[in-house]
């Protein structure tokens, strides 16, 4: 049955909540009451309006036509004076009475006006030169008045005061900011950051700042002439803007007998305590003792309220971690959590560069970020906010929290132009990503599917995520699939592996049939599952060929024209004249269009039609080099101690031994290795999934998690060992730990920092978890299960395994070089 929903308040909280309820198909006739004569506008943008960089039309979120289109009755300029919860009615100032079945109070806040002599005239409101900064009308009047005057004083050195001061500079020549506390933005910033901000505001913007300035009196009778401070100082001015804070509008609730402390007290479902049909949301609501004045918590509250009111009774608002990242008066400022350590155990890291006005502080407790303050440089703010919000593991090298070290530089999403290319593989612009969000895609994976952004090398995924979050008003919708191992089976990897074992599932189709509701098969999940099952069952895996990607069906890498590449194994990059001669003969026999040396020190025969593959392998009679699979690929080596006059270890022999043992090992991602004979690193071992470096004294260093592809990262030192045998054992153990625990397509350069090198060392080297023997056994089983796939050539594994897929037209050719 359609219920009557009444909403008191038409600001950002009220209107957003109604939007969320409508989006859930809530069966309500909605009536809203707004104090102001407008639709819903973005109050945060008033400072831009004041500064003249935004128009009035531009700040509206819901104009009056929105209400009509959505069947919402809006009473503007109508203040509700009383709620009668007994009779379920609200009583407006104009005498009207409106009944409700459900009521939402979203009255927001008002500007707080400190008790200052002369600030208002009995019975006439504020002194005519005094303005609050809260509403569109306040802003309009302030602009009109400021244009006719010269000197402004802003009372309040918080965020709003700073924005007001900056905005006023567009209209008059002199602005002084008075702040009662000891430093600017004292609620968010520590003292040093506050002082740094003050220095920038004064020097870069030319706004005079006075801290510890308690304003006691507004001077001037008809026109304002100045303000007097508690210490007797007088500051001349002809306009005063008060931005000293906000107070929740709770009068109507309190007058109606609802529970009010600092705000209207609500439970975890956003219901007013003790009233099942009355909700409160936004700045007026007090939840678990907290009031929120930022927009992100409001979105969270609106969602919970909308879920609950539309019948999802098990939802809960658990409070929000608040963070801000913005330009305050043109200066980058970000803050989250604590602005000062709460105990001696809190780890505080500070970087300060006064001449450039940069200050950064992070506070860490038990390995988790509990607070951060940034002034003058917000390049790491998004990253920190993410770490803070989600309580993620922090990089061991704490400097990475504050600076970009060797990684991609984080662009500021707000400042990126619409045509800026986000995904360099698939050519997707910021505008295209935002367009997908605007057309209704609210999850990161949804946007990626729609635009193909992030579907190439994947490096831009974090940026895509940030753009989606930004375009969606601060938060992407939680994508339940984000934690799943593959998109089509609703389980993270550990649960999935447990279920596979419990039900003894040895084929990809049996996993879909048993573990997916409705037994729905998913093409995009098959490859990941095939890899996982092969890893788990080795020889017992039931190999359904359709679960394989084409590369794995025909043991070659598909090229842009539908032909394939053939890369024979060349262990450690060491070859012989006989092998080279044979490769040359085969290349000539098959008229191979391109012969190329690979980055992994092998020879690539390119442009091979599918149907020629088996014959070519037979003529080559060499094992596959696995240059196509998500598997162990190659071990790159340098010439080592045999010939190099600098070499201190036999890197070639060790590289060959490693490749001999772990060839073809499947994994969640590629595994590229290297062994180098001295720290000159000619084999590039520092940036491999696993790299081994010989050091003087017969020792070997093992690095893991390095990368030099789309992402550049130096590997972390896992261990230094005294023999090649130990290298071989630890390599197998690390690779097996990675195979069992990494997400699908998660390379070691993401996996290692995610787990943490210390933790990996505990497990793989120190065996603190007691699983080293099990890892060794598992990898041994996998090694024993190795079969050279190129032996699969006399008899095709399936009918037409090597049949041409594009027999007629000539596709765009890869250019052939003479």
């Amino acid at each position, binding site marked *: 049955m359609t219920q009557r929903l009444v909403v008191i308040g038409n600001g950002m909280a009220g209107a957003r909540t109604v939007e969320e309820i409508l989006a859930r198909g809530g069966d309500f006739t909605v009536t809203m009451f707004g104090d102001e004569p407008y639709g819903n506008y973005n109050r945060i943008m008033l400072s831009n309006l004041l500064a003249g960089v935004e128009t009035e039309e531009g700040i509206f979120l819901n104009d009056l036509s929105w209400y009509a289109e959505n069947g919402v009755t809006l009473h503007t300029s109508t203040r509700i004076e009383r709620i009668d919860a007994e009779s379920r009615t609200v009583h407006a100032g104009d005498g009207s009475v409106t009944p409700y079945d459900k009521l939402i109070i979203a009255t927001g806040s008002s500007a707080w006006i400190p008790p200052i002599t002369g600030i208002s005239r009995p019975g006439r409101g504020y002194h005519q030169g005094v303005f609050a900064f809260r509403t569109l009308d306040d802003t309009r009047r302030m602009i009109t008045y400021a244009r006719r005057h010269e000197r402004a004083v802003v009372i309040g050195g918080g965020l709003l005061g700073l924005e007001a001061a900056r905005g006023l500079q567009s209209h008059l020549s002199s602005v002084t900011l008075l702040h009662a506390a000891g430093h600017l933005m004292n609620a968010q910033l520590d003292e040093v950051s506050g002082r740094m901000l003050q220095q920038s505001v004064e020097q870069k913007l030319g706004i005079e700042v006075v801290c510890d300035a308690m304003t006691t009196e507004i001077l001037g009778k008809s026109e304002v002439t100045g303000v007097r401070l508690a210490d007797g100082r007088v500051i001349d001015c002809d306009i005063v803007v008060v931005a000293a804070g906000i107070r929740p509008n709770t009068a109507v609730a309190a007058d109606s007998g609802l529970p009010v402390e600092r705000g209207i007290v609500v439970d975890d479902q956003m219901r007013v305590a003790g009233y099942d049909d009355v909700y409160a949301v936004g700045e007026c609501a007090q939840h678990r003792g907290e009031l929120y004045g930022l927009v992100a918590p409001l979105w969270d509250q609106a969602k919970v309220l909308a879920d609950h009111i539309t019948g999802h009774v098990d939802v809960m608002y658990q409070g929000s971690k608040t963070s801000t990242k913005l330009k305050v008066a043109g200066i980058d400022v970000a803050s989250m959590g604590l602005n000062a350590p709460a105990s001696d155990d809190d780890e505080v890291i500070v970087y300060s560069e006064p001449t450039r006005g940069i200050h950064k502080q992070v506070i860490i407790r038990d390995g988790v970020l509990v607070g951060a303050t940034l002034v003058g440089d917000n390049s790491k703010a998004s990253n920190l906010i993410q770490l803070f919000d989600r309580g993620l593991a922090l990089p061991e090298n704490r400097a990475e929290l504050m600076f970009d070290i060797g990684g991609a530089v984080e662009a500021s999403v707000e400042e990126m132009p619409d045509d800026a290319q986000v995904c360099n593989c698939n050519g997707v612009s910021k505008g295209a990503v935002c367009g997908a969000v605007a057309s209704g895609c609210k999850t990161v994976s949804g946007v990626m599917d729609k635009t*193909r952004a992030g579907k190439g090398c994947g490096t831009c995924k974090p940026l895509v995520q940030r753009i989606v979050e930004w375009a969606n008003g601060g938060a992407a919708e939680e994508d339940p699939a984000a934690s799943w191992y593959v998109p089509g089976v609703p389980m993270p990897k550990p649960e999935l592996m447990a279920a596979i074992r419990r039900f003894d599932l040895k084929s990809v189709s049996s996993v879909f049939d048993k573990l997916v509701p409705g037994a*729905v098969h998913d*093409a995009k999940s*098959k490859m990941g599952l095939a890899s996982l099952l092969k890893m788990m069952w080795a020889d017992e895996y039931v190999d359904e060929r359709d679960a394989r990607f*084409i590369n794995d069906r025909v043991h070659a890498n598909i090229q*842009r024209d*539908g032909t394939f590449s053939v890369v024979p194994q060349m262990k450690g990059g060491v070859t012989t004249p006989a092998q080279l001669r044979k490769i040359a003969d085969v290349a000539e026999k098959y008229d191979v269009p391109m012969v190329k040396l690979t980055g992994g020190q092998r020879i690539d025969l390119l442009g091979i039609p599918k149907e020629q593959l088996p014959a070519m392998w037979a003529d080559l009679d060499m094992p596959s080099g696995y240059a196509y699979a998500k598997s162990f690929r190659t071990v790159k080596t340098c010439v080592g101690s045999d010939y190099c006059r600098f070499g201190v270890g036999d890197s070639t022999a060790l590289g060959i031994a490693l490749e001999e043992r772990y060839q073809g090992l499947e994994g969640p991602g590629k595994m590229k290795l290297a062994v180098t004979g001295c720290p000159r690193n000619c084999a590039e071992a520092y940036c491999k999934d696993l790299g081994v470096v010989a050091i003087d004294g017969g020792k070997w260093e093992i690095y893991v998690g390095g990368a030099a592809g789309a992402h550049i990262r130096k590997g972390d030192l896992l261990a230094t060992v005294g023999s090649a045998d130990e290298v071989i054992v630890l390599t197998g153990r690390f690779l097996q730990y990675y195979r069992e625990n990494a997400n699908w397509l998660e390379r070691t350069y993401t996996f290692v920092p995610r787990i943490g090198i210390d933790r990996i060392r505990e497990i793989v080297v120190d065996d603190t978890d007691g699983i080293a023997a099990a890892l060794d056994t598992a990898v041994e089983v996998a090694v024993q299960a190795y079969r050279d796939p190129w032996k699969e050539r006399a008899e095709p594994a399936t*009918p037409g395994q090597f049949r041409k*897929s*594009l027999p007629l037209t000539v596709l765009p050719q890869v250019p052939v070089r003479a």
Partner: protein
Amino acid sequence: MKTITATVLGALADIPLGEGRTYTVQDTMIAVFRLRDGSLRAVDAVCPHKGGPLADGQIDNRIVVCPLHLNSWDLATGCSQSGQPALTVYPVRADGDHIILGD
């Protein structure tokens, strides 16, 4: 859309379960897929994005994913799920052990 007169493509067993193979029928290249639910689907063999061989793509009971850039299409309607032009869908059925394409 080109109409294809009913043609016997070959034995059903030529296409492994869950895979596709390309056939040339009246100068048109058509990828025929044998779904794991037993039914058949036929669409254009050439990916309209960059010419990839769709018969080499992975499928489920609903979609095909091009092996080159992982664009995907609904096998029943030909509609793209990733902003590409649609594929032509051809009628196809099994008649005993044989695959019949066209009406």
